């Protein structure tokens, strides 16, 4: 941390009081806004069902940890969690890899069809996703019938779908990050005997790590939270969390306390992962400093 903070010093001049106070006030308010629902989740997850469905209280009158045990009984939460992890993880890795290649091509080569490619990729973000649902399902079923690869109902189909959801934005974002990496760097690498892919992986990717991490986080969260496609493309063995959590609101009852407890439990590993990745979000400074 100390070496990092030294790098972060932006100017020899100390920041004026007006800046420091605005920062304090703004960040405090923002933290409050972010924390409010989190507090509600934590406190509600510790209340018995009768209390949760009653008037809100800042300080819960009766605390219980029962919901944290009940969540595993009401729905197979662990299975859903594993499914989500596999689907979102695989989609992220594939999406980022494919996007790195595509962005490299667009950023470093001029070739016929470049503009068509970028515009087409962007246009896919404009059609409301819900209308993809049925045609996509049909396509998967037909691929399944033709080739024997079961895409619908399997994790594979969902991975494929999610990775393409995040692909357009990842490509666009990475093109921007790659463009900002000085060309002299990969030229120098090529002179040193690296092939085009060598230049990509030895020079450009390391220099664009913050961007790649940001894009990866985005790809992961897209797959992690998607509800609609998951609801029709999965069955009870492949169901993901985003859909599985709805299992706590049944026809007869809404187990508010369990919803909150389960959400917290499944979000904890993700937040922890973010914590680890944070480091990489700022390492880009080093890359910039090479210049």
């Amino acid at each position, binding site marked *: 941390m100390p070496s990092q903070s030294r790098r972060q010093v*932006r*100017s020899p*001049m100390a920041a004026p009081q007006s800046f420091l106070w605005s920062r304090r006030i*703004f960040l405090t308010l*923002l933290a409050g806004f*972010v924390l*409010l*629902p989190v507090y*509600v989740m934590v406190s509600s997850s510790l209340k018995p069902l009768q209390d949760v469905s009653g*008037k*809100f209280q800042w300080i819960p009158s009766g605390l219980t940890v029962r919901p944290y045990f009940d969540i595993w009984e009401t729905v197979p939460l662990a299975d859903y969690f594993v499914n989500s992890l596999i689907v979102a993880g695989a989609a992220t890795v594939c999406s980022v890899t494919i*996007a790195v*290649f595509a962005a490299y*091509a*667009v*950023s*470093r*080569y*001029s070739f016929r069809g*470049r503009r068509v*490619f*970028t515009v087409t990729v962007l246009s*896919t973000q*404009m*059609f*409301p996703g*819900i*209308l*993809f649902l049925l*045609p996509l399902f049909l*396509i998967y079923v037909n691929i399944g019938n033709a080739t024997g690869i079961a895409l619908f109902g399997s994790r594979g189909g969902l991975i*494929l779908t999610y990775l393409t*959801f995040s*692909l*357009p934005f990842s490509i*666009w*974002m990475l*093109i921007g*990050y790659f*463009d*900002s990496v000085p*060309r002299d760097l990969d030229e120098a690498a090529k002179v040193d005997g690296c092939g085009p892919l060598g230049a990509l992986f030895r020079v450009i990717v390391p220099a664009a790590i*913050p*961007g790649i*991490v*940001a894009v990866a*986080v985005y790809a992961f969260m897209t797959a992690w939270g*998607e509800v609609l496609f998951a609801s029709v493309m999965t069955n009870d063995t492949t169901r993901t969390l985003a859909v599985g*959590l*709805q299992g706590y609101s049944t026809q007869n009852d809404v187990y508010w306390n369990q*919803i909150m407890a389960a*959400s917290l439990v*499944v*979000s904890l590993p993700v*937040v922890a992962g*973010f914590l680890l990745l*944070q480091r990489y979000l700022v390492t*880009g400074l080093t890359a*910039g*400093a090479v210049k």
Partner: protein
Amino acid sequence: MTTLTAAPGTGERKARENSPGAPRKRRSGRLRRIGLPYLLLLPALLLELLVHLVPMVIGIVVSFKELTQFYIRDWSTAPWAGLDNYSLAVDFNAPIGEALLKSFVTTCLFTVFSVGLCWLLGAAAAIFMQESFRGRGFLRTLFLVPYALPVYAAVITWAFMFQRDNGLINHVLHDQLGLTDSPPFWLIGDNSFVALLVVSVWKGWPFAFLIIMAGLQNIPREVYEAAALDGAGIWQQIRRITLPSLRPVNQVLVLVLFLWTFNDFNTPFVLFGEAAPESADLISLHIYQSSFQTWNFGTGSAMSVLLLLFLLVVTGAYLLLTSRGRKTTDA
């Protein structure tokens, strides 16, 4: 946008490509160089074709068909409807067209506010946190929490808080602060627009924060130092260096935030359930209702195609405007 970004470098690149990168095996090397970009694009292209473009084309075909529950079992039997689906959707004097128009206007308003606020919060937080201070790491993690929660969990928690009789919001506004005469509704009626906006911003701003934070890393420190030597204060540095440097990131960020917010389905669907209140009836939910719940996919597709056209025009105009502005600053 990307083409424009690359434009200044094109000449330089041409020269570079002709220069002998690898002196041995020059001919096969050149062949590979010409083929390489296409090879690199191929996986992305194939997947986009499969998951986005082909379904989109099917959607456009369907918009000219009368695809109701009588025909969904075998789409080819659905009769052609000509422009009927479209005329139904744009007949603003009849309830269906009128509702669509209303929903469209609502969505536009909602998108402008939501994207604006998301960007503002994200940019402000990222800039304030550019410099190290105690607790920065903690705050950065905290700010990503809304993003790390599954959408369903986050939105259902807000729905829980927005309940009229038992929710936290009214508990504070009405019971504790006494700002209102009677507890207002948030999930039905006119306030639902505000509720939707709050949830959308809460969920969306950390993404802007993340992207802008990553973008800030690429601003070389020397630039700030030079400015500081020239006597620029911190506010001036932000205005003169940080914000202009964020331009390329912002251009993409604002555009995708706009597209996502405009097409957002999960948030209103979880917040309001199957029928959103009129004042928060976003277009994607509206189309979902007009197609899935009523099993009339022809009309739903026609509405989607209209939406696609609108977004194409807006995006085109946006890219033109922002890149023109960019060129002048570059010059």
